[in-house]
C-alpha cells in the first residue's frame, strides 16, 4: 500500500471500517457478540482482529425459555458488570455507538 504521507497520528483520515472504531477510543460503545450477548463499555484498545479491552462493562445475555404449558416464548436477560475486560475478537459481531432507548 502506498504511503499517504500522513502527518500525525491524530489527524488521520477515516478510510476503512477499522478507522471508525478508532474514533470510538475512550468512548462508550455497544458490542454485539455471538451467543446472544451484548456488551456496553468504554473502549480502551482494539486491534485488527477486533480483540478489545473495555472498561466499566455491562454484559447482557439474552435467553429464551419456552413455557411447558402455554408454550409461549419468554425472553430473559441476565446482566453483570465487570470493571475491566479483554474481549477476544472472534466472538464479536458488530461494534457501534451505544443505543439509548430507541432501536433495540
Amino acid at each position, binding site marked *: 500500500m502506498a504511503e499517504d504521507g500522513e502527518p500525525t497520528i491524530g489527524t488521520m483520515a477515516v478510510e476503512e471500517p477499522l478507522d471508525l472504531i*478508532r474514533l470510538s477510543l475512550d468512548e462508550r460503545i455497544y458490542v454485539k457478540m455471538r451467543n446472544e450477548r451484548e456488551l456496553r463499555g468504554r473502549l480502551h484498545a482494539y486491534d485488527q482482529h477486533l480483540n478489545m479491552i473495555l472498561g466499566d462493562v455491562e454484559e447482557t445475555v439474552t435467553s429464551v425459555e419456552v413455557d411447558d404449558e402455554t408454550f409461549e416464548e419468554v425472553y430473559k436477560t441476565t446482566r453483570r458488570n465487570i470493571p475491566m475486560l479483554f474481549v477476544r475478537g472472534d466472538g464479536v459481531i458488530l461494534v457501534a455507538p451505544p443505543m439509548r432507548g430507541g432501536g433495540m
Partner: protein
Amino acid sequence: MTTCGRRGESLHQTFIKMLFYSFFKSLIGKDVVVELKNDLSICGTLHSVDQYLNIKLTDINVTDTEKYPHMLSVKNCFIRGSVVRYVQLPVDEVDTQLLQDAARREAQQQRQ
C-alpha cells in the same frame, strides 16, 4: 506481516501488531479470571502468554459455582487462545491512557 520488501519496517510492524500480546505480558504475575467459550470461568495467576494469546495460569480455581467441570486437582493449566471468550482484568493494573495511545499507533501501522 511482510517478510520481504520493506526490510526496516517489517520488524517494527510485527512488534506493533502484537498490542495485546505485549499487554498480557505486562500482566504476568497478576490474578485474572479467564472465561472460556464453554462458559467455564477459571481464576488464576497469569504465568505466561504467547503470540496466539494462549495463556498459562497457575494456582487456578474454578469461579462462578463449580457446576462446570470440576478441576479440583488441577493447579496449573494451559489454555488455547482460541477458546477464550473474555479475560477479566484487575482494574488497577491497566493503564488506559497507554492502551489508547498504543491502539491508535497500532491502527496506523495496520493501515500501511
